[in-house]
């Protein structure tokens, strides 16, 4: 069982909570944490379930809803905004047919807004899972999305 294996890597110390949640979520093909996950982690660390739930919902990188295979995070911070992230966002919404926080019906893409990704030199930028894409244009987005669709 994946979850048990992850838990065993860590000491039963409360400061490991964020690390454990990261690992469990990364092991999930749908990039999310289930209610059972949260309860198991709470038990393991001797924390209240409500406390673990509070942490999991505070940070934007965790999700309690299943997400698509490709998690697209679009930066809308001021530097990206200045260089056209609004156009980029609109184009993504149009191409994928979903809004922010939503997942396509084929469970391939989830669209999210992200805080500054720290790649402002190539603004406007987005991240697809761990990969950064910068200097985005509507054409480049179409190309990237098309490429990912083919890859499935």
């Amino acid at each position, binding site marked *: 069982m994946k979850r048990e294996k992850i838990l065993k890597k860590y000491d039963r110390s409360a400061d490991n909570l964020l690390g454990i949640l990261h690992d469990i979520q990364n092991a999930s093909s749908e990039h999310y944490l289930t209610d059972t996950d949260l309860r198991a982690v709470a038990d393991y660390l001797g924390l209240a379930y409500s406390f673990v739930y509070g942490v999991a919902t505070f940070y934007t990188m965790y999700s309690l809803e299943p997400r698509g295979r490709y998690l697209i995070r679009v930066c809308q911070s001021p530097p990206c905004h200045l260089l056209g992230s609004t156009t980029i966002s609109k184009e993504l919404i149009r191409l994928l047919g979903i809004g922010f926080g939503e997942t396509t019906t084929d469970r391939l893409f989830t669209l999210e807004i992200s805080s*500054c990704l720290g790649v402002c030199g190539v603004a406007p930028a987005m991240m697809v899972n761990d990969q950064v894409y910068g200097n985005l244009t509507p054409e480049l987005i179409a190309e990237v999305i098309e490429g990912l669709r083919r890859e499935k």
Partner: protein
Amino acid sequence: MSIYRTHILLPVDEGTVQAGVFEIKRRLESELKARKLQKEIKVLESGSVGIVGKGVILSVYPDRIYYFQVKANDIARIIEEHLLKGRIVADLAHAPVAAMAADRTGARVGLTREQRRVVLDKAWTVDPRNINEVLASGGYRALEKIFSDKLSPEQVIEEVKRSGLRGRGGAGFPTGMKWEFTRKAPGAEKYIICNADEGEPGTFKDRLILEGDPHKLIEAMTIAAYAIGAGCGYVYIRGEYGLSIERMQKAIDQAREFNLLGKNILETGFAFQLEIKKGAGAYICGEETALIESLEGKRGNPRLKPPYPVSQGLWQKPTAVNNVETLANIPAIISNGADWFRKIGTDKCPGTKVFTILGHVEYPGLIETDMGTPLREIIFSFGGGIKGGKKFKAALLGGAAGVFLSESLLDVRMDFENLKENKAVLGSGAVLVMNEDTSIVDMLFSIAKFFAHESCGQCAPCRIGTRQILDIVYRIRRGAGKKGDAETLLQLAETMFKSSLCPLGQSLVMPVKSALENFKDEFALAISQSEK
């Protein structure tokens, strides 16, 4: 170990990875091998050189020539022409560098001119994944010096105090004093934390240090631990910085192997353990007490100050929290002395500063230069001026929690003191440049949206205030402004400044006030047009 006549450096960062640097590397190695040059020319990966948006960058040492936008089919040409015949491939070389090649002093390396690199000196010339290279280029020498010169922790603190080093995270607090407070605070158990939760929009300086020279950070934190009396330290890196985490972990593992971290550092009996903690996406965790809460495994809600972390920090023990760039200055200060450091920069703000230049400039990227460099020089000389021959309109200094400056302040000198005198802030060192076509109302809207999203919700002034400000700016932006909106915005921002619990709620006043004051007419026009 073999000696190579030429080194080819390939900076690896998010931008060059997207452009296919690893493919170029494979191709380069196989082409060199095909020409039997693999024993003469070595291909290395380095940290980012600070130039971004120029595709795969390849630099040739010792010639100090930079090639931009390198594609796989350029490689044969670079090898044949440059590496075999010694002729620079002019159409691929970075233009100012072509002129530089004549004297080969390297004086013009960088964006367009000389940079003094203290913090980032090794970040683009050394393979950060290879500790032997780091050691050979002077890494860990400051740590060695402390033990060989038998410097006491008090002497180390004194040297840092004398250097005048001030925190580079934005607040500018004297680092030596912070260390002294932590050392003198009662209690045997103390901690050193490196704040690598870089989230200020427009800032990526810490990422380049983490990726380009992680060993410098380990050395600095070990020195800090020795000075304040900590046995354990943490680097808190934001979760989105995958490559930084990977590089830092590798460096920590290697340092442990070489006895530069662990139970018996350099066989002196000094013990220091260093661990990475990964954030999970929260701008607020850049605030030191929120960071500590997060590190303890909780929601990143800031604490009420005082008590300050120096007396009650991590697990309520005395803790020094320092920014990445601040710490990266420490080895040079210990090695070269406080007097050397004081000669750089200004009297009240010695040293260099790493700036990120962004927006409508010719060369967006990162530079390191002396504290006190005029803004005009940063934008027009390093940044190459406004893109596409447009006119300058405004610069947002210090990220979202920053200040809008108009053209009249272009000659301001960029350091903590001078900017403060001009009602501006240095912040994280981000310089977002806007051309004449930019709407300041629209930019303020983007900032307001950012703060409304990132407010942690713990205190009412920030939770409600950020939302109210966003609503008003949104209304002005879509042409439904009302008389009195500007006054209301100012009042809201000032109330938040006075009553919010932490710097997040307190800082929205800076962009709001500076936008309304320095671009008064634009807001007045937007509001009066809506009323018609």
